[in-house]
């Protein structure tokens, strides 16, 4: 067996370890083991590569790994759980950049003529990796609020973007026919980077979770392309795993919002739409702001409580006090459960992670389809900084932008308590008639402060 064969065999082992890793993610009880298996798959593959006989430049390699591990490790240790979506977006951007850079390195170091297939996959890797890099950075800045979370649109935007795609492919054709045309090659790099920016800026902040998943899928695709070009099976397999995982999460979120991927990408959802309000579609009546004491009495008298967290809980870092309140009421004999919509927060499963951080047992967390029928028999629902995922207009108002989106049907409960920062509309910019209903008690203020005062009022 030659060394190349041995290395390929080790790559097979690491691919199996990755697969087992994901398989073990099917339950929170085995997930930690899964992540360890996945890590060892990576370690084995890296060691095998480093041990191959024609390796030089170990000093450079050690230096680069040191820098990368330092930066990545520091970021991973420091990041707040509430900022996880931004962190994942940035890491993902790094993955895209790495694939594109590997393809560029291969392009520059290649000796002799390129095989057609190699050239095509290299160019695809550069284009996809490049736009994943800048797209992820824009997604990061939108999630952080560094640039406006509203869609940035301008006339003929899609025509311009389409034109850039065509131009990029045209240049790729030029390079394909003449790999020595350096100018076209550099232009492809620049255009791919521009494409990532231009494709993400018209997408509203509320849709960023979908975009981060989709970009995750792209980074996988870029890795697979690099794998084809380098004829490296580990890269091909892993890239397709990641591509499938990203696409799967993207589709889950699109389904959870009842929107197509095309609508997310090109719909500029959340652009301020005045027509709906002008046409008198907005809810009538007034929101009833309540005092902490009133809400505390409602909670004390409840036998069952469902807590519905949304991004507002994350923004206020209210997950710990939420758990305190939940635990206290549980001890008082209230049946406390948590209902989590798949697009609550800024990434799939975001709320679950925050509640896990606050030490809520994961068997208290329910997905929408497992708990929606129970709202009608529940005394009190406590909505913490969630808005669109509990908006009854999704079921009742065909002119609403979110009509048809599956929601948590909290309005069926006897009493709904909504903790909300202000009277303003939510992230997606849509009015919510739930807030105007007779069985709804609004409690305005910072979620963390509200829950703290609720807790002390109940304990009194």
């Amino acid at each position, binding site marked *: 067996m030659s060394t190349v064969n041995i290395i390929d065999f080790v790559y097979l082992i690491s691919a199996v370890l990755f697969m087992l*890793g*994901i398989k073990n*993610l*099917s339950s*929170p009880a085995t*997930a*930690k083991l*899964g992540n360890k298996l*996945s890590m060892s798959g*990576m370690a084995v*593959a*890296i060691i095998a*590569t480093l041990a*191959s006989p024609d*390796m030089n*430049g*170990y000093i*450079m390699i050690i230096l680069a790994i040191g*820098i*990368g591990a330092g930066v*990545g490790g520091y970021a*991973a*240790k420091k*990041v707040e759980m509430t900022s*996880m979506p931004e*962190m*994942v977006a940035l*890491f993902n951007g*790094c993955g895209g*950049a*790495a*694939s594109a*850079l*590997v393809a560029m*390195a291969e392009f*520059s*170091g290649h000796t002799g003529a390129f095989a057609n297939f190699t050239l095509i996959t290299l160019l695809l890797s550069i284009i996809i990796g490049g736009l994943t890099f800048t797209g992820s950075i824009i997604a990061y800045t939108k999630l952080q609020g560094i640039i406006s979370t509203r869609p940035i649109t301008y006339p003929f935007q899609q025509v311009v973007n389409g034109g850039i795609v065509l131009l990029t492919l045209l240049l790729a054709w030029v390079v394909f026919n003449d790999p020595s045309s350096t100018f076209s090659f550099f232009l492809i790099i620049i255009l791919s980077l521009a494409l990532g920016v231009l494709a993400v800026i018209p997408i509203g902040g509320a849709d960023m979770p979908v975009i981060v998943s989709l970009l995750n899928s792209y980074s996988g695709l870029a*890795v697979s392309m*690099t794998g*084809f070009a380098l*004829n490296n*099976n580990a890269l*091909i397999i*892993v*890239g*397709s795993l*990641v*591509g*499938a*995982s*990203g696409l*799967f999460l993207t589709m889950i979120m699109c389904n959870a919002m009842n929107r197509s991927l095309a609508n997310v990408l090109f719909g500029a959802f959340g652009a301020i739409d005045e027509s709906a309000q002008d046409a008198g579609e907005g809810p009538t009546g007034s929101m009833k702001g309540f005092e902490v004491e009133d809400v505390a009495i409602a909670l004390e008298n409840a036998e069952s409580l469902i807590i519905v967290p949304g991004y507002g809980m994350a923004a206020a870092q209210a997950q710990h006090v939420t758990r305190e309140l939940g635990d206290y009421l549980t001890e008082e004999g209230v049946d406390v459960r948590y209902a989590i919509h*798949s697009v609550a927060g800024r*990434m*799939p*499963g975001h709320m679950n*992670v925050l509640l*896990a*951080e606050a030490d809520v*047992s994961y068997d208290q967390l329910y997905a929408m389809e497992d708990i929606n029928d129970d709202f009608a028999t529940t005394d009190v629902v406590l909505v913490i900084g969630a808005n669109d995922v509990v908006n009854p207009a999704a079921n009742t108002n065909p002119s609403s932008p979110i009509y048809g989106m599956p929601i948590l049907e909290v309005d069926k409960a006897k009493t709904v308590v909504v903790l909300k920062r202000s009277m303003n509309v939510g992230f997606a910019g849509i009015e919510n008639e739930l807030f105007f209903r007779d069985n709804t008690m609004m409690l305005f203020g910072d979620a963390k402060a509200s829950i703290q005062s609720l807790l002390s009022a109940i304990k009194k």
Partner: protein
Amino acid sequence: METGTIIIGLTIFVLACFAGAELISKVPQTLHTPLMSGSNAISGIAILGALIATGRPESINAESLLGFLAVIFATINVVGGYMVTDRMLQMFKKKKRKKKNK
């Protein structure tokens, strides 16, 4: 590159896509964030290509410099992704619920 090699590569790609989709559809909603950050860490596997690009040239040239950058980016992706996933998974606990039937 021979057509045979391409076909083998494509076969692996398509089969791995199906296997991946099958595995991932079993992951519950509660773990979707760790799934995302974990699969994100795996996508840092581009580090293998990056190591080869850095280590193959006998002296420093454009290829090895690009490879050097790629190793940095890929390592951030791998190390950061795994650590953050591990941090999250450590938090998922099932508590003994003492006051269950009261």
